[in-house]
């Protein structure tokens, strides 16, 4: 029990922090030539890609599971999630381990670029785009030294309602 609690730290500050009026640190990374950023407080560690074990009959962006020091975590291909083709899984690719609520998951990206300090007020809303459903997990756009960086909302990235379901289930179990 405690092991699980340690391995999967609660991470609540992700979304709220974006609303606060202060500077926040983000980790930026590139996927297919585009720059994205996620809240640094959600990031647990960054590892080289070492392969996954495939899970049968899952959506294509679920690459499989990997062993993170005894904990089994799923690895997702962000590029596939965005619907812009598959990230070529090679040794040079990077897995960013992040905590989304109670879960720890890995995100496969091309490369980690930088640590950005961004004022919340600098983050501009995402314009209406054709991508539709995809826009839901883009929480804003920020311009860093002339480059456009898209800030991602981790909680919206992967089947939010299922995380919600899990939460509900736990609540129900407590009652």
């Amino acid at each position: 029990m405690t092991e699980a609690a340690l391995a999967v730290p609660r991470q609540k500050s992700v979304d709220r922090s974006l609303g606060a009026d202060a500077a926040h640190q983000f980790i930026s990374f590139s996927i297919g030539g585009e720059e994205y950023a996620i809240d640094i407080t959600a990031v647990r560690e960054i590892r080289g890609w070492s392969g996954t074990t495939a899970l049968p009959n899952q959506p294509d962006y679920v690459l499989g599971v990997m062993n993170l020091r005894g904990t089994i975590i799923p690895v997702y291909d962000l590029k596939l999630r965005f619907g812009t083709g598959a990230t070529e899984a090679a040794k040079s690719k990077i897995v960013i381990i992040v905590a989304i609520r109670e879960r720890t998951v890995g995100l496969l990206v091309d490369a980690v670029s930088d640590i950005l300090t961004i004022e919340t007020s600098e983050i501009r809303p995402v314009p209406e785009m054709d991508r539709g459903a995809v826009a839901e997990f883009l929480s804003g756009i920020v311009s860093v030294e002339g480059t456009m960086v898209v800030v991602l909302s981790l909680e919206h990235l992967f089947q939010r309602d299922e995380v919600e379901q899990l939460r509900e289930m736990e609540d129900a179990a407590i009652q």
Partner: protein
Amino acid sequence: MSSDRPSALDLDQFRATFFDECAEVLPDLDSRLSTLDANAVDGENLNAIFRAVHSIKAGAAAFNFRSLVTFAHGFEALLDRLRDDRLELSADVASVCVRSGDVLASLVEAAQKGTDIPEGFGADVLAEVEALINPEGTPAAIPEEKASAPTVSEMQSWRINFTPHRELFRHANEPLLIIRELKRLGELEVCCDRTGLPELATLDPEEAYLGFSFSLRSKASRADIQEVFEFVDQDCDLVIEAFSPEPPKEAKVPSRALLPGSAATAKSASSERKAKSPSFVRVDLARVDRLINMVGELVITQAMLTQQPSEVGTNLRDQRVQGADELAAHIRELQECVMAIRMQPARTVFARMNRLVRELSNKLGKKVRLVTSGDETEVDKTIVEELVDPITHMIRNAIDHGIEMPEQRLAAGKPEEAVIHLSATQRAGNILITIEDDGAGIDAEKVLAKAISKGLVRPDADLSEEEIHELIFAPGFSTADKVTEVSGRGVGMDVVRRNIASIGGRIHTNSQKGQGSSFTVVIPLTLAVLDGMHVAVRGEKYIIPLASIVESLRPDRRQIRSVAGGDVIFIRGEYIRLIYLHQLFNVAGESENSHPALVVVVETENGTKAGLVVDELIGQQQFVFKNLNENADPVPGIAGATILGNGRVALILNLEDICSIASASLKRNSKSGLEHQHEAVLDAGEMSALAQASASAEPVLQTQA
């Protein structure tokens, strides 16, 4: 004095110990109470009940759980009379005792959770208890609130001299608690006698030096006051005398002065109560001894492995091989020992259900008897704890929805009293827990109508009885016509299923309308380690739990037959359907052979056999079970994962799931009925008719054979 008071941490620990003991005593008490029989008075049983109640009372008094003490006291007095044959154990009395046990358990629960007890909770039962103790109507000697009940109306002044002996503290007594008790009885004035106090240099902080004299104006009787000192009477000189008012004025310490301290203690205690109490395991000493022996053996093996070859005179390689073998054996045994420590009999869960059944059936006016079997079946402690909620919920459902009112039962030609059978058995590395009732069963039409009205299925869906039964596990499903106190709050069978799934288990339903229903929960014996067969399917590797494997074979082409698109294998007069894992899991890649290379015949706990077609058997090994659902969504057909020697993850198959996916996808393909979560990819035509064929398959096949 304050230096002697146990620190908050200690108190917390003592409190946890007390509730731990309660948790142990209460189920036992409950089962003993339910065996109370008017016709066969068992003195030993009564004594055990008395001791249990007494120990709860004593503990409760130490932690100042007032209502608990009051109630336990009354109950204890009743039991005392039964024990001494001053009261006859009639059926009525037995029933009062059982209900008292329930109230007591509720009070303990409330004290543990720190919840407020509703005013007058258990008062009716306590009144009955008192009526039994004193049929003439004279009040029982009960401390505090009850004592100030209208029957004792005379205000009386008491003078109490309380001189603790030096060793008072060593016997875990505390004058402050006593003062607090007295304060509850009425108006209290306290004088502290400091004459016994030595010089600071010679003061031993572990001894009691202070004496107290109290003057108390209260309606309480002498016995009530005596009661307050019950636990210290061996450790003090006590004089209690009634006197006419005119309290002494000199050297008066206003009782108020004591209050801030006591209030603070109470406050800190209540805040501590919220902290989660640690959980403990009670272990048979023999098991611990075995464990220690095994550790000793390991040390010897380790020494053997590090010895220089010259010392033993054999060659190094032989010795290393032998050492590794021994090490493997020892580790396995060690693991078994450790597992055994966490094993608990199912009784610990079952015993709690008696009370639930009693309370619920009374509330709903139904007659229900709970029968348990397999109480001694051992289950991993973590699983035991996870089982309490689902079982509670299912029993609640059975009583609320399943079991009919007595008159309906009689009209249906059933005995008035319904029976819920709760059983635990062990089979093939699994624990089976069955909850079976002889009630009305699941009303398929009602369930279907409800599901349609909730939009869970399409109105024109054509569902089999089995599929309809599955609907009760759908989220948001409830057949309760209105939300009652008992059920229908939206926490439904879906939560039960998920709770059970979270410990790697499954649940099966079986119901006959009018005959009752049964729910079977299948959970792994232990969550941690399992024996498995490592197999390869195309490029992927999976683990099949060894306990489920019947045999593995490389079949002859003639043994395999196609039945309406699907394949079956004929083994010793039995037809077993084949499941092609690479198709089921949609694994890419080609096998060299067109016909199945290897078939692993598995048997699920409900007796279904299936042949899993794999490419290669890699080997048999012990695997550490890792939960997959902690971070990922559940994957149909996969029970969990493990980490191989090379650090890679391998998936452990869930055979029951695989069999049901295979049939579900067949059904879905043959008729688009229940939309379901399983996204199994199966060639539509491949096995489509097998499900229908299986019903009529036998004769057809036999003519073929």
